């Protein structure tokens, strides 16, 4: 045998881990919470999800074509689908179609491809999409609805839903409602303290998600289950979720202990809003989070703390998206100052 294949550098084996498999696993983890959200909010949420995810895919293809990097493999790595999915999880379920399209544009074109595509973006694309929408279109982005289960008599039918999503028919007043955090914030401006505000809310089953909000805010327990699944599959590490939840819960607990009428409890902070989605699915975005364990702890804690600060003191009821984007900006710095000690450096040779 004289002709052997072209020599190749070691290693001559691979674990089989692929980008597309990572993305698929994350989507699998998102599925239960998404299906729960679909059941809870019915056809409009399904339609909006389809529009958002579809727009992301179309824009991804367009951007790859423009960059001359087309090809099915790059599209089917699933990163665009996942970014669109995560964005859709944070939208009001009855929002009109163009919210999904504009959000997809900000997510895929502005946040991802303007920086050079997959792996190059410093900011979490889905959060850029959400923040762009929230600042530009505050009204549709804060029109929340009560749960209106699929096939329930009071819920909009498929035809009604098509009207709501595509032809701007206003959401029936009877359905509109506020999120837990939105309600507390609004009550605070009327001088009603947090304790009363929470009591005034029908909180039964709120941990189970039976309240107004985005898909990502409602199925909290399912989101948590999906996050634990990702941990078990080693797609993410524990550092960011643990430190983010700690960064949110610690100041909340202290504040609540000192002045319960002014500060929401840690439990409310953790179960309301996008805390779980943020901790397990958003802040853990591989591209935009630090590469070192120590860096991830700092990053997660910062996200949690900023979320609490924004929720408590700023004008927005929910601040996770802002917190994540702010911390994203610090990732290169965090990575630089948390480089692990290299073997054989800076330690006496004889330890024992």
């Amino acid at each position: 045998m004289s002709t052997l294949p072209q020599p190749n550098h070691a290693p001559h084996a691979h674990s089989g881990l692929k980008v597309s498999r990572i993305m698929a696993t994350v989507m699998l983890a998102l599925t239960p919470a998404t299906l729960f959200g679909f059941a809870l909010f019915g056809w409009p949420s399904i339609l909006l999800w389809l529009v958002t995810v579809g727009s992301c895919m179309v824009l991804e293809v367009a951007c790859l074509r423009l960059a001359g990097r087309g090809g099915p493999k790059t599209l089917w790595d699933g990163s665009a689908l996942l970014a669109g999915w995560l964005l859709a999880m944070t939208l009001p379920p009855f929002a009109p179609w163009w919210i999904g399209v504009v959000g997809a544009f900000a997510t895929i074109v502005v946040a991802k491809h303007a920086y050079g595509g997959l792996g190059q973006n410093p900011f979490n694309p889905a959060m850029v999409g959400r923040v762009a929408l929230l600042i530009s279109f505050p009204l549709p982005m804060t029109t929340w609805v009560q749960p209106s289960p699929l096939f329930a008599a009071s819920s909009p039918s498929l035809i009604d839903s098509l009207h709501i999503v595509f032809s701007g028919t206003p959401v029936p007043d009877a359905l509109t409602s506020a999120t837990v955090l939105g309600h507390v914030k609004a009550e605070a401006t009327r001088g009603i303290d947090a304790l009363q505000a929470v009591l005034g809310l029908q909180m039964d089953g709120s941990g189970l998600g039976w309240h107004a909000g985005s898909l990502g805010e409602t199925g909290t327990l399912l989101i948590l289950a999906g996050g634990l699944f990702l941990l078990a599959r080693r797609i993410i590490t524990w550092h960011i979720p643990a430190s983010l939840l700690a960064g949110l819960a610690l100041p909340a607990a202290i504040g609540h202990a000192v002045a319960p009428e002014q500060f929401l409890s840690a439990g409310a902070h953790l179960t309301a809003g996008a805390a779980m989605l943020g901790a397990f699915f958003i802040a853990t975005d591989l591209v935009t989070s630090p590469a070192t364990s120590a860096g991830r702890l700092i990053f997660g804690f910062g996200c949690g703390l900023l979320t609490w600060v924004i929720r408590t003191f700023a004008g927005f009821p929910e601040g996770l998206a802002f917190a994540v984007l702010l911390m994203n900006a610090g990732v290169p710095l965090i990575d630089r100052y948390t480089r692990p000690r290299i073997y054989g450096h800076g330690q006496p040779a004889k330890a024992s």
Partner: protein
Amino acid sequence: MPAVATLPAWLQRSLIRWGVHPDDHKRPVADLPVERLPLPSRLFLPLQQHVGAPARPVVKIGDHVLKGQLLAESAANISAPVHASTSGRIVDITTYPAPHPSGLEQPVMVLEPDGKDRWIDTAPPADPFALPPTEVGRMVSAAGVVGMGGATFPSAVKLALGLRVQVEILIVNGGECEPYLSCDDRLMRDHAAGVVDGIRLALHAIGAQEARVGIENNKPEAIAAMQQAAAPFPEVRIMPVPAQYPMGSDKQLIQVLTGREVPFDGRAADAGVLVHNVGTCHAIHQAVRLGRPLVERLVTVSGGAVRRPRNVVAPIGATAQALFDYCDGLASAPARVIMGGPMMGNPLATTASPVIKGTSGLLALTQEEVGEGERAGPCIRCASCVSVCPMNLLPLEMAAHIRSDDPDGAFQLGLNDCIGCGCCSYVCPSAIPLSHYFSYAKGALAANERAKLKSESIKKLTTARLERQEREAREKAEAAARRKAEREAAKARAAAQANAATAKAATADVNA
């Protein structure tokens, strides 16, 4: 950090925060009895099978030699002799494709076996432990023993170093963490007594009191055999370690067995330890107890393309093709043929290349085993490479620097600490050939360093030349000035004399 290997087994795994678990593919080959390769018709013995200077031939073409006879002697401080792998005739001293990815030719001696396989007369010492340590080292050196785990560093040089700096612990590497390979496993199962004897001889040669033998816990039979063989010798401690690649890397094994780290700018001896592979220890036993030089070794012939994978005892110099043929050849065209293991081994350019002292395995891997060979995608910063790196490096950041043609940036991040284990490439979901990047950048850095040295020496020469020219010009000018001054002085003297003469004449005239 404490020595992980001294802690309870259930704790060990969780304390080792690096490495990967490739499918080990070691069985059933590891459980099959070892077979001996029949003598091939020709053996190709490279003069360089070790780190250091190539050996210098001491026999001529046409000479008849006996098994174990010296063919080429050690040619420098760091070098190793080469011996005849069987009895026969030296038919040529020529060049032949090296077992290296380049397949470039290297000097070899071609030995045609006479089929008798007759040994030289050996006179092993009655009690080697009565000999001075340096004498044991000399015997190891004369036997041409080199690191048999693949590093091929002359063992006697290491023993001498260990004796000189008084290392405390001899680390014996029975990790064999590379997938497929089971030659060390087999050696420990079949020749535990010889290995333990070699370990004790090495301890004697370096004057150390304790040997720690690290064996991955996926080799329970080898651990049991070694424990039994080492039972009478409390100075030899058999320490099972978690099966985790790259456990068999010197630096990692030292860390796990002793808690010490080799300083980045030093050697294992600086951490008070010396590392020898179990195969090397067995070769030391053969050399000192039996007076037999290193002329054969155990080679794992395996991989999905091999029909009858086996552990084979092969004479040094047998071709890879001869070993594959003995294993009934290849069932399918291999995607890669590797010498060594799949994680760090070198692809062969041709199967005509010979087995050398450092050849632990010959693998013919199918496409399926190698992976799909996908094109590299963009880095998604998943940091899998960071979590597996046994040196605590940031492969993704080093790769980013290298991609933007900045090997110095990668150097700042610890490029030269990279041991090339390949864990990062193995896990990368984007199939980025990180190990390849790092090899390339290390080469680029070395080339830069050489270029810098060269330009510095040119600068020095130029400066020296300018200085010399200046000096010469100055000296010339000075000499010219001196000559001129002398001429003028002479002229002045002559004039003065003339004046004096005139004056004298004038005086005379006056007097007259």
